[in-house]
């Protein structure tokens, strides 16, 4: 188990290294030039060279990657002209645009995604399991059709649409809630909750559909299993049969998808939700960085998100091992 974990984590580190190499070299293969962007219009070649030097872009890509890689473990110092900026290990670089260490910005934006992702995930998982189970038990009946229909409706909705609609109704029209946004829970728990209510609701509406359908189909598959018949033959009440024997088995594929979703949600994949509700998370940071050709931030957000997805994979496998005793982690 321990050796398995170590092996998986080493593999994860390797994946992240490969991702950073790819991101790095793809960036330089693209036509965008951060120095040109910083230089502005009517940029003279001399000025361009000056800025390129200031951003450290005048060295070869390989050297730049090595500097980046070294910085991960040893930290780096930036700026030889105006002010020295120290970027402590693990240094993901310093933004071309804001001259702030990328990690600082990431950690600043991360709690928003964590609150947004975990809060929504908890609700859509529990509600999805509940609704999906209900639909499976009442298969073919009105409850099922309602749940499946609602799920289909939810799946076909776009976050962009749901989000703006909720904002319009709850904030603008009925004025039941203050403007959505992120307030740190440490600062004001009530504002934290109120501000995230609509973003959560949006994510839940869209994801709930997926989890209801997933649970329903997984549950129906389990219902056909022999051990479910055994459970009934033992004389277990129907509820126990479904909730204990059924759910326990049906939850496995759901957990797998859930792990991935949570990993990518808190890694910044909720970018549209972030954007609609003005939550400054990793996703928006990533989009902005691409627009601004801000390589250190592109790299940082990519690695950060990848780390969560990769870690989520490891966690899912570990959980899998706990949920399904047939899986041996070795």
């Amino acid at each position, binding site marked *: 188990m321990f050796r398995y974990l170590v092996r998986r984590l080493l593999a994860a580190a390797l994946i992240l290294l490969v991702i950073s190499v790819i991101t790095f070299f793809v960036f330089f293969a693209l036509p965008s030039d951060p120095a040109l962007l910083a230089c502005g219009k009517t940029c003279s070649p001399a000025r361009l060279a000056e800025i390129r030097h200031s951003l450290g872009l005048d060295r070869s890509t390989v050297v730049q990657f090595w500097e980046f890689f070294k910085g991960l473990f040893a930290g780096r110092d930036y700026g030889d002209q105006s002010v020295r900026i120290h970027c402590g290990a693990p240094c993901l670089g310093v933004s071309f645009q804001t001259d702030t260490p990328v990690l600082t910005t990431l950690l*600043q934006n991360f709690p928003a995604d964590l609150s947004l992702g975990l809060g929504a995930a908890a609700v859509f998982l529990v509600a999805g399991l509940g609704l999906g189970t209900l639909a499976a038990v009442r298969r073919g009946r009105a409850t099922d059709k309602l749940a499946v229909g609602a799920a289909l409706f939810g799946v076909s909705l776009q976050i962009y649409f749901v989000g703006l609609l909720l904002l319009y109704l709850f904030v603008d029209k009925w004025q039941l809630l203050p403007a959505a946004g992120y307030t740190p829970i440490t600062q004001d728990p009530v504002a934290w909750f109120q501000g995230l209510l609509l973003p959560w609701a949006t994510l839940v509406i869209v994801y709930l559909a997926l989890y209801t359908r997933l649970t329903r189909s997984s549950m129906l598959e389990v219902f056909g299993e022999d051990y479910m018949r055994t459970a009934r033959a033992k004389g277990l009440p129907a509820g126990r049969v479904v909730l204990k024997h059924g759910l326990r088995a049906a939850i496995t594929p759901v957990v797998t998808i859930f792990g991935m979703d949570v990993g990518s949600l808190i890694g910044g994949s909720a970018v549209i939700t972030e954007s609609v509700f003005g939550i400054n998370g990793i996703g928006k940071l990533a989009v902005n960085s691409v627009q601004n050709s801000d390589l250190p931030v592109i790299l940082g957000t990519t690695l950060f998100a990848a780390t969560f997805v990769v870690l989520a994979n490891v966690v899912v496998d570990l959980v899998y091992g706990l949920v399904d005793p047939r899986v041996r982690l070795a």
Partner: protein
Amino acid sequence: MTRTRRTVALSVSALAVALGATACGGGSAADAGGSPVKGGTLTILDSADYDHLDPQRTYYTQPDSTDELLVRTLTTWDETGARPKLVGDLATSTGTPSKDDTTWTFHLRPGIKWQDGSDVTAQDVKYGIERGFSGDINGGPPYAAQWLVGGGSYKGPYGGKQLASIQTPDQSTIVFHLSRPVADFNEATAMTNWSAVPKAHDTGSTYDTHVWSDGPYMIQSYTHNKELVLVRNKYWKQSTDPVREQNVDEFDVKFGQDQSAIDQQIKSDGPAAQTATMQYPIAGSDLNSIANDPTLKSRYYKIPAPGINYLAINQNTVKNLKVRQAIEYAIDKATVRGAFGGAAYGEYASTMLSPGIGGYKKFNLYSTDPAGDLTKAKALMRQAGNPKPTLSLAVEETPTQEHFADAVKTSLARIGIDVNIVPIQTANYFSTVDNLKNQYDLTWGDWIADWPNASTVLPTLFDGRLIAKNPQANQDLSYLNDPKVNAMIDKAAKTTDLTRRNAIYGDMDEQIMKDAAVVPLMYMDFSELAGSKVGGIIPDPILAEPSLVHVYVKH
């Protein structure tokens, strides 16, 4: 004031521009009624953080507008009248040029203080301008480096060197020595990079969040991508400032909400939004409904920008003048404008200089009907021998611009020209088309003047001698290198008399249109909305922003 940011803001949020919608533009509503009230907090809702707030690094209109509250420039624009008027700001007057316009002298007003109560000196101004030469302090406009003697090789003050062409004989006098005559130098000095920075408070590349104030407000806190809070600077005195007021207690700039959500919020005027305004223009998809809503009229601001949306025709590849002129006649600007959001986007253009710009001359060499004149276009094509060329068209890869490209393609198909649309990622659009390696037959572009003078439009966009000098940042998308135009550019630069100089620019514009180098599409307007309790907003046509300097909150 550079063109990219406005464009990005528009294209990203204008996800679903209603096609072909036409409507009368609601006039701008300068809120003259009511008198200023002190106190309260004005909220500014911005879809994205500023790239820079450091006065030497800003080049975009949103932070420029905010910087007007924080930093004072040598000169500035008084926008309370019918037309913006240049006045001295840090300086007592709009500056004194030498006879040949190569030496400019400014005297500083007495009594202007930094936020710590110390005096703003000529040395602070010199230092501020000098730091913009450093590679670390990038992003700002290039004029200082282009004009000041020795500016081409100076690398900023951080190495300990000073720029000799900026002289400060005493604490309140600053003299600039230019390598060539610049008659409108004092209009350039209204840009924020001609402002003071105290050496002791310069934090280099992190100055964005530490801007030291000599304006009516100062930074209380600035968290990137989140919030900027400005509070009163108690050392600022109304008596020393010709344009600014200090009405509200606090400015609270909130970054990162989706533009459509901002539009909706301010439109519905909930309790929080009543005291809010915006800096990015209303999203294209919301534009028509907001512009035409009579209940919003008193809060809706249509601000004419000193800018132009155009289609450049490459002189190197479309060599036949008749063909170029046929294109001028054939483009259906009505459909084109529909793609960009309809009437609220701006008036149809027939010149490169827009009406608010010094040097503007009203003329129209081609079709009077915005939908085009097919008879003339076809006749010109016949005279050209009815070629059936295929032309490439570079546009941004956004729904808006793809609709635009379709409109161009349809227009030109009518005269036998086939258009091959080349969409380019928005973020890389200008760095791609500005590179000499990438030449297209037709290139979309837009341009907002840095100050309302033709000198920041025509010489930059049409001086063919600059093409080779900036191989990666060529602004002459038409690749026009007309000796007549070049000669006029030189002549205008040497002409110190404003009226005569403007006349030259007007003729230059006409010559460019005779060359059929470019199809001007629309003079750009920007539309903004404010909450019902916001007063004192006036349109700032220099930045095309709602001006914040007279703003107050009603209670």
